[in-house]
């Protein structure tokens, strides 16, 4: 549609001073790339999770044993 195209033309001032007022805008925090985890760290976290799980099971067992005699 060439007619539509010709009806809009950009305006670029060729003379005089062009000034833009700088308005301070609020800033967003930046996007965060997530750091990859090292093998040791993953192993450490896995071990810790397993250890916690083991302790929880142990405690559950003990609680059951305590309830049984009644």
């Amino acid at each position, binding site marked *: 549609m060439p007619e539509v195209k010709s009806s809009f033309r950009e305006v670029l001032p060729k003379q005089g001073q062009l000034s833009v007022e700088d308005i301070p805008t609020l*800033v*967003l925090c930046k996007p965060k*790339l997530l*750091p*990859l985890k090292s093998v040791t760290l993953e192993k450490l976290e896995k071990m810790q999770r397993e250890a916690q799980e*083991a302790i929880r099971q142990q405690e559950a067992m003990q609680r059951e044993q305590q309830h049984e005699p009644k």
Partner: protein
Amino acid sequence: MAVTMDPLFLAWSYFRRRKFQQCSDVCSKILQDSPYDQAAWSLKTRALTETVYIDEVDVDQEGIAEIMLDESAIAQVARPGTSLRIPGTSQGGGPSPAVRPVTQSGRPITGFVRPSTQSGRPGTMEQAIRTPRTAHTARPVSSSSGRFVRLGTASMLTNPDGPFINLSRLNLAKYAQKPNLSKTLFEYIFHHENDIKNVSTQFISKTHALDLAAMATEHAQFKDWWWKVQLGKCYYRLGLYREAEKQFRSALNHQEVVDTYLYLAKVYQRLDQPITALTLFKQGLDHFPGEVTLLTGIARIHEEMNNVTSATEYYKDVLKQDNTHVEAIACIGSNHFYGDQPEIALRFYRSRLLQMGVYNCQLYNNLGLCCFYAQQYDMTLSSFERALSLAASDEETADVWYNLGHVAVGIGDLTLAYQCFKLTLANNNDHAEAYNNLAVLELRRGRIEQAKAFLQTACSIAPHMYEPHFNMATLSEKVGDLQSSYMAAQKSEDAFPEHVDTQQILKNLRQHFAVL
């Protein structure tokens, strides 16, 4: 009738196949029948050690106690470029916080976390305690031995008959004389029992044993570098860094081993002498040219000193030697991303890491971000979807939603963005960045009070970020509350001294106050 395998051989086979639990079970049976079977005993110690073994080079956690009661500090205010503790002391020109987010200790976030990078060095005790306890922030563990102790007690609790070896009843001097048993025993005590005091007493007896042996068999025994390295490791765990240094140095005189260089460098880093550590790494490289772990060590120090350009150089050297090195790829990738080249970052993350088989939430999140900023919109949302499905913890989910919020802001869908940031907070209500971004969105909707509340929360959670302080200053200035605006601007200046807009606000306010 089936022929049964020799139990010791079976145990060995289990050990080689890394089935440590079965191995130790078989060994226990052998030991029940013949309690003095040294082979089975030694194998069981090794199996138990392997179940909890962590590479000692990587483990370096500083607790609050270690940071606050640091006796080895020489100067309170280090000269620029000589200290790891003050993040701003580099001349390398790190990325500004305006483009790259910073961690709680004021360093740009890195592309890779290790156990040691997790705990940054907070400046004061107050800051150390106030930091929220999440995996991503730099709150130090209360004491470095805390985690080791916990792992140790867990393994003991699960064993109904009590610990395998009763250390207090062990005649260490006797074992120290048997070289084939003493090394496995040492590793067991060091890794499994975490009883450093006992290990070092074993060592004192060990050196006594060496003394005796030395008198008998000349000085041959004194020259065992392995024991010296172990002694150094014990000293390091005990916090006696100078003694550890001596042991490692003397071990290096006997035998050049890469590990010893790494341990020694760790000591220097703990003593806050990065330059010495760097020269040490370079000496190590003279003996072991192109050694990847040494090169990585250099790169890490440069990165910690905010000298990102040279860190990248060294990471590139690492990739020349080992082009599947995940840490190097991740760090270079994140540098390209924050250096405004997301296409190249995308290449690192996709064609190197993804094709290599790294498959986790973090990688897909990074891929999604890189795709979005590199204008490959077809892959963006599917990457984020996969990241969400792979997220292992609430914090990870929160971070993925936070980044999705940025994508929403980028396509102009502010309602979606608002929802994403809300979801971030639902998963992790300590997420300061999300609070700040929500505040900005609220202000666009014209809800000033709500925005102010969000900003205040963000400021109190993350005083190290400049964004909430700066936004607070701008907002207060608009409302006419010049005093709070000035205070917030000053905090923003502390966090990011070169920020031009903050300077502008401060200048305006000072003029205002002068007129009054």
